[in-house]
């Protein structure tokens, strides 16, 4: 494994890691020693080992997060930059070419194009616009959205600033999902660009940040990836606003902490990052993993693997919390959040297989471990809780034997260290919540007076609501992990990005089993181990209230009510960044141009759409194979639509088949004119 030649003393990196991991290990050892005295003495060795093992893993997870955040806190207080990165003068003219890539999959074409237009607008104003080309890389499978994307792209092209280009291409088969999409770009056009800024459908980066990222790549020739931590914005449901606030207040110390110990071996989060195309092409071709899904097949969470591969190739990967003005949107509801987690969980679990692959940097392995643990920790927590309950229940059913058959001078007193248990509980809670308050301190110190208003009560409100949600997420994630291990595929669904609220009915369907589990646990604990009742209440209460919490937090009205009362307010809500405003205006403009018809109907009725679609067909092909029955059915339905004015009721496959049939589209367009229907 090659080491990147960066201007940084390796001893300095080593010392940073020693501090974070040394303190984490010391914390784990001390807490585990205490834990061994706290757990009951009259349980079998196997149960005891299980409880210790689960404790080490779960506590270790908290301890690493805690110490990382503590160092991030001090880094932010000192306002120190990540060492080893050469910063360029802001006025430096870019001499390189950068492609800004927006991979999309059945997303709103207006929103994605609007974000690109807003970025292009700002870049043009910065005077560096000509160093950038924009690409919409579509993997869309919905034929109606496909046609809409084409039309929308063509309209957006006309709105691009002078001299800047916005391109569109669609893959007929979305092989290897987003990573395959980017790889396809690299294979076809990558050599024409020095760097690529990879976005998500909801990404938005200020021009100043994009230019700085490109400048950094120019002056740090050993750098493969620079990740700009994204800030969640633009959503109004209570759930989303809470996430946005948490990201704003706690996010900086988390990012700063990660940057502190990761230094030049950082991770890539899949979007809002700039990548050196040459390094990516050389190092990041992803293999298809041996074996069956979910562990085999295409790599789903490709970003972590690409960062590990680029690092393996001797390039540096940086997470730079100094880069502001990088935005994304978070899921609007708890259920949407969980659905996203389901996809991510499958991808992260797949990393178990490559965790021990040859030649990866130890920090890259740690990234994989952190990814795996971010989901695996839920069933581990659940396991620890259930083991505790089972032990307590067992004691009720099998009372302790004070006088064993073996002759002894003393009875076997089961020892329960109540003080020790409370101490461990307090320490764990401290490690969980202290980083939030450290984040708040930085936020209050660095924010203006208007931001301070309501910040403290927002943190407390966030703690209460997130505590209620935590057990629900624990159950969700435990189920996802189980699903993955049972080989159930998550598929590839588009993330909901609208402020749509959850209905009571839907919440009952999704959270019914959480409520049932909560009630059952509460009843069992109340009946058999009442001494655990209050300890278990934060968990059982969260589960029992999961339906109302999920519904109420999904409400935009409640989110706005909280905003009115200065709760969960982020600076971007008080003073909207110019780029967000521009993106909104462009979206409204593009939505006003949205055609009333969609899909095949639009292509056969509208001459412009017809010509544009046929023009793009050559770059959107070759047509995927569709079976003769589908093709024939599609042809008949189109003929009935033209000759008998029947509704064009096409299935998705039929519509796709027609959209690739240029003769049918051409003739249908002419036939409708001849029929006098246009």
């Amino acid at each position, binding site marked *: 494994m090659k080491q990147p030649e960066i201007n940084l003393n390796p001893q300095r990196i080593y010392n940073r890691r020693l501090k974070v991991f040394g303190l984490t290990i010391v914390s784990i050892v001390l807490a585990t020693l205490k834990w061994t005295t706290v757990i009951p003495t009259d349980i079998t060795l196997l149960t005891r080992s299980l409880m210790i093992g689960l404790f080490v893993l779960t506590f270790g997870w908290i301890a690493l997060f805690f110490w990382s955040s503590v160092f991030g806190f001090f880094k932010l207080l000192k306002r120190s930059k990540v060492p080893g990165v050469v910063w360029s003068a802001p006025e430096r003219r870019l001499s390189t070419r950068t492609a800004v890539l927006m991979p999309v999959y059945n997303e709103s074409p207006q929103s994605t194009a609007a974000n690109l237009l807003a970025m292009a607008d700002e870049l043009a104003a910065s005077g560096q616009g000509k160093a950038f080309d924009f690409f919409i890389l579509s993997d869309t499978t919905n034929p109606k959205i496909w046609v809409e994307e084409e039309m929308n792209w063509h309209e957006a092209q006309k709105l691009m600033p002078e001299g800047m280009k916005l*391109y569109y291409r669609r893959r007929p088969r979305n092989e290897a999902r987003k990573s395959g999409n980017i790889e396809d770009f690299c294979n076809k056009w*990558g050599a024409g660009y020095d760097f690529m800024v990879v976005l998500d459908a909801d990404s938005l980066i200020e021009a100043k940040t994009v230019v700085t990222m490109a400048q950094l790549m120019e002056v740090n020739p050993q750098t493969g990836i620079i990740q700009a931590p994204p800030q969640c914005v633009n959503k109004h449901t209570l759930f989303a606003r809470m996430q946005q606030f948490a990201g704003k207040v706690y996010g900086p110390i988390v990012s700063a902490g990660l940057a502190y110990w990761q230094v030049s071996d950082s991770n890539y989060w899949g979007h809002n990052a700039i990548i050196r195309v040459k390094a990516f092409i050389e190092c990041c071709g992803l293999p298809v993993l041996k074996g069956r899904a979910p562990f085999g097949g295409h790599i789903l969470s490709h970003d972590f693997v690409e960062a590990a591969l680029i690092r393996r190739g001797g390039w540096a990967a940086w997470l730079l919390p100094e880069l502001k003005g990088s935005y994304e949107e978070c899921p609007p509801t708890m259920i949407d959040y969980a659905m996203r987690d389901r996809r991510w969980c499958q991808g992260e679990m797949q990393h178990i297989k490559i965790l021990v*692959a040859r030649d990866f940097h130890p920090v890259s392995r740690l990234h994989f471990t952190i990814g795996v643990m971010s989901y695996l920790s839920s069933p581990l927590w659940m396991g620890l809780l259930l083991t505790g309950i089972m032990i307590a229940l067992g004691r009720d059913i099998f009372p302790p034997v004070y006088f064993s058959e073996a002759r002894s001078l003393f009875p076997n007193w089961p020892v329960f260290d109540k003080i020790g248990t409370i101490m461990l509980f307090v320490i764990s809670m401290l490690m969980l919540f202290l980083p939030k308050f450290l984040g708040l301190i930085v936020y209050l110190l660095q924010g203006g007076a208007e931001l301070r208003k309501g910040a403290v009560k927002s943190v407390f409100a966030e703690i209460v609501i997130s505590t209620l949600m935590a057990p629900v997420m624990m159950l969700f994630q435990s189920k996802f992990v189980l699903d993955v291990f049972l080989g159930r595929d998550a598929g590839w669904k588009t993330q909901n990005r609208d402020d749509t609220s959850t209905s009571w009915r839907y919440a009952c369907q999704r959270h019914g089993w959480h409520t049932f589990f909560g009630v059952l646990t509460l009843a069992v604990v109340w009946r058999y181990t009442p001494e655990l009742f209050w300890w278990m209440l934060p968990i059982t209460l969260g589960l029992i209230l999961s339906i109302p919490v999920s519904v109420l937090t999904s409400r935009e009205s409640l989110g706005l009510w909280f905003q009115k009362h200065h709760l969960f307010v982020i600076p971007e809500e008080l003073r909207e960044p110019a780029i967000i405003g521009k993106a909104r205006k462009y979206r409204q403009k593009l939505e006003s141009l949205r055609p009333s018809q969609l899909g095949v109907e639009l292509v056969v009725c509208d001459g412009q759409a017809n010509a544009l679609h046929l023009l793009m067909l050559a770059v959107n092909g070759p047509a995927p194979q569709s079976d003769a029955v589908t093709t024939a059915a599609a042809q008949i339905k189109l003929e009935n639509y033209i000759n008998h004015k029947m509704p064009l009721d096409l299935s998705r496959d039929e519509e796709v088949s027609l959209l690739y049939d240029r003769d049918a589209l051409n003739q249908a367009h*002419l036939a409708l*004119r001849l029929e006098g229907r246009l």
Partner: protein
Amino acid sequence: MVAVKVQSLKDIIRAYLQNLGFSGQKLEAAVEDVAACAGDYSDGGSIVDFLDALPVSHMRRQRKFAGMPDYQIAALFKLVFIENDGAGRWGTLPWCQKELPTEMLALTERYAADMLPAYKASRMEAQPIESLRPVRWFTRLFRRRKHHEAA
């Protein structure tokens, strides 16, 4: 295949031109013009293909369109024609003259350039990600020991 009901040649030309934005009196004049210009059209193929082929053959002479299939060039021509009020600006010239108007050619070239940049091919090779196999380690260890014992 969608069946086009049997129509007169002029009806089809009329529909074709209407789809490109011709209307009113200009349409009728254009139908006569194009019908005259399509005089050498023999009934062997579709009149629509024939009308498409005329501007395509002019555009084909440009190197810019060398790699594009005919249907794509025809679509490009139509898009430029529709979006730039071709009926008003160029009328029936694309079908009745031996060359396309320079202004129109320049526009089609610009549209083609705005579509996608030229390919600059690279090849991303799948990188090996070889899992360390504890089982294989054990076998190796065992083999070595046997080897050692034999020695």
